[in-house]
């Protein structure tokens, strides 16, 4: 029936035609009509404004297009607002927009628990950075310090809980924890330096909080790595080629970013900071080379450790360069030899390898990052036998690279000496 009906319908028009006679007559009528009603002379010369008005009139008649335009305007204005509020600090009028609207909006776009956890860590970093900015200006009030400190704790707790939901990605959590730990350790150094320059209980308190978080994250990294490697039998390579490659890529990307960051912020760094930063970059680059050598000999586990250490060093360096260029808090040259606040002379081999400050932790403290530890033992041996990295690394590096100049790698400007009496007791904590 269906096909028959449709076939029948298609046959309906076949019986009717206009007919030649009627067609000719109609054509002649229309020809006369065209002669009688000529086209207006200006018709084809439409001005741009007329075209624009016509276009807008046409557009506004279509609700879908109007909605789309409204959406574009909304996005554009939101983007402008986002840009304007990105650098807002507690106390600024746009700060409420930043943390109350834009950040939750961006957070809502993340889907997986793992991505949400990463976002929480990003938020924690933002809060720490805000606190560092205020502290460097001497405007970190006790209320703001307490609020930011609480926010950081909450963000980190949220991240931990979210990672717990996604047990399949414990490796992601381990990497994220290690990275966050490095970042917080670096910020702790920045706070320590600020406190040295302008002692303040708020800065000291924030420093303590950061140190505690960094320690907890390091412990978490240790636990997670132990979990990952436990099922494997002794003698088996504990690291897959994929993990090694991923760690290598991440380290290389971070180092490349540091190079850019250094070249862009060169003008704002003091000579000694610049030298120290390049020395650290060289050390981190050496760690990647070290990892490559391990990988070539088939020890992918040691190679991964080396790459992860390079990444940790790069993460830390990123924070320190940022603090030196934007906040004018110079911890780079200070970090090269001593930890200013703690008044602990750092061990040269550990710094030569760009290892995080946790390797400098006194042995009586239980929190030693596994990543740093493994590399410091492995790479120290190897690199100590190798020529001085600063004399062989980066033969093609820019001239600014201290390895190619006669300037000593160890910066001449030593950190401000701080008498233990001037340091709040709470800050006598290792990073």
């Amino acid at each position, binding site marked *: 029936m269906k096909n028959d009906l449709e076939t029948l319908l298609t046959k309906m028009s076949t019986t009717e035609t206009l007919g030649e006679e009627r067609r000719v007559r*109609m054509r002649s009528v229309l020809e006369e009509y065209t002669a009688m009603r000529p086209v207006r002379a200006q018709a084809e010369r439409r001005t741009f404004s007329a075209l624009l008005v016509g276009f807008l009139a046409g557009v506004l008649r279509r609700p879908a297009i109007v909605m789309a335009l409204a959406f574009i305007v909304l996005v554009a204005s939101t983007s402008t607002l986002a840009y304007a509020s990105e650098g807002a600090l507690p106390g600024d009028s746009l700060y409420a927009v930043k943390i109350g609207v834009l950040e939750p909006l961006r957070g809502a776009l993340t889907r997986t628990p793992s991505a949400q956890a990463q976002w929480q860590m990003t938020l924690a970093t933002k809060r720490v950075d805000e606190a560092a900015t205020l502290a460097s200006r001497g405007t970190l009030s006790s209320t703001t310090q307490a609020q930011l400190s609480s926010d950081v704790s909450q963000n980190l707790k949220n991240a931990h809980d979210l990672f717990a939901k996604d047990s399949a990605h414990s490796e992601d959590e381990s990497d994220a924890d290690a990275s966050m730990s490095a970042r917080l350790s670096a910020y702790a150094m920045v706070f320590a330096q600020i406190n040295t320059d302008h002692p303040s209980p708020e800065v000291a308190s924030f420093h303590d909080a950061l140190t505690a978080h960094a320690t907890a994250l390091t412990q978490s990294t240790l636990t997670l790595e132990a979990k990952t490697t436990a099922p494997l039998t002794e003698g088996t390579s504990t690291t897959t080629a994929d993990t090694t490659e991923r760690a290598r890529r991440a380290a290389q990307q971070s180092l490349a970013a540091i190079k850019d960051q250094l070249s862009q912020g060169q003008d704002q760094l003091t000579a000694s900071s610049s030298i120290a930063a390049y020395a650290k970059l060289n050390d981190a680059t050496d760690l990647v080379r070290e990892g490559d050598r391990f990988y070539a000999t088939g020890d992918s586990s040691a190679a991964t450790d080396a790459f992860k250490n390079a990444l940790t060093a790069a993460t830390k360096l990123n924070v320190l360069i940022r603090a030196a260029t934007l906040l004018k808090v110079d911890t780079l040259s200070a970090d090269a030899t001593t930890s200013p606040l703690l008044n602990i002379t750092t061990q040269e081999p550990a710094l030569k390898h760009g290892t995080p400050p946790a390797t400098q932790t006194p042995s009586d403290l239980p929190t030693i990052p596994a990543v740093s530890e493994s590399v410091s033992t492995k790479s120290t041996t190897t690199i100590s036998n190798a020529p001085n990295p600063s004399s062989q690394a980066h033969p093609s590096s820019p001239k600014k690279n201290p390895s190619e100049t006669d300037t000593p790698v160890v910066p001449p400007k030593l950190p401000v000496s701080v008498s233990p009496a001037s340091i709040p007791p709470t800050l006598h904590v290792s990073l």
Partner: protein
Amino acid sequence: MNEPLKKEFLGAFDAFSDSLYKHAAFRVSDRERASDLVQDTFMKAWDYIGEGKEIKQWKAFLYHILNNLIIDSYRKKKEASLDALLEDAPAYTENLLRTGGRDETEAILDTELLIKEVRSHITKLPESYRTAITLRYVDGFSPKEIAQVLRVSENVASVRVHRGLTQLRKLCRKSGLS
């Protein structure tokens, strides 16, 4: 300045006048009215050009005008009996008898009767379905072309054809057509 436009206009007449007439004749069931509607369609198209506007898709544009004129004409005049159209064509039957055998002629006439009945049911359809069915089966338009003529989305055009066909099928069943 008139000449190129006039040439284009008359070219469109040569290309589409027949099919427009078929469409109109099917819709209004009156040859003279259909002829007038087609002529009015082209006059309106020329008026449009005369205002300095451009016609990019002649076919869709002309059918759109014609469709509006048909709807207007429905309002002005009660539709004539569809039977009048076929009964008004005795020459057509005579011609069939002259050119074909008796059995063949009977088969053709059976089909014509069937068509006549289906057409009577088409007039009972809501206007939007009737237009869509006519454009689809009588004029052989694709859903995309129907959408352009009626200035609706392609989906809406397809839905109208589908629903029109379903209703027509129900009407045919009710009247005993299998």
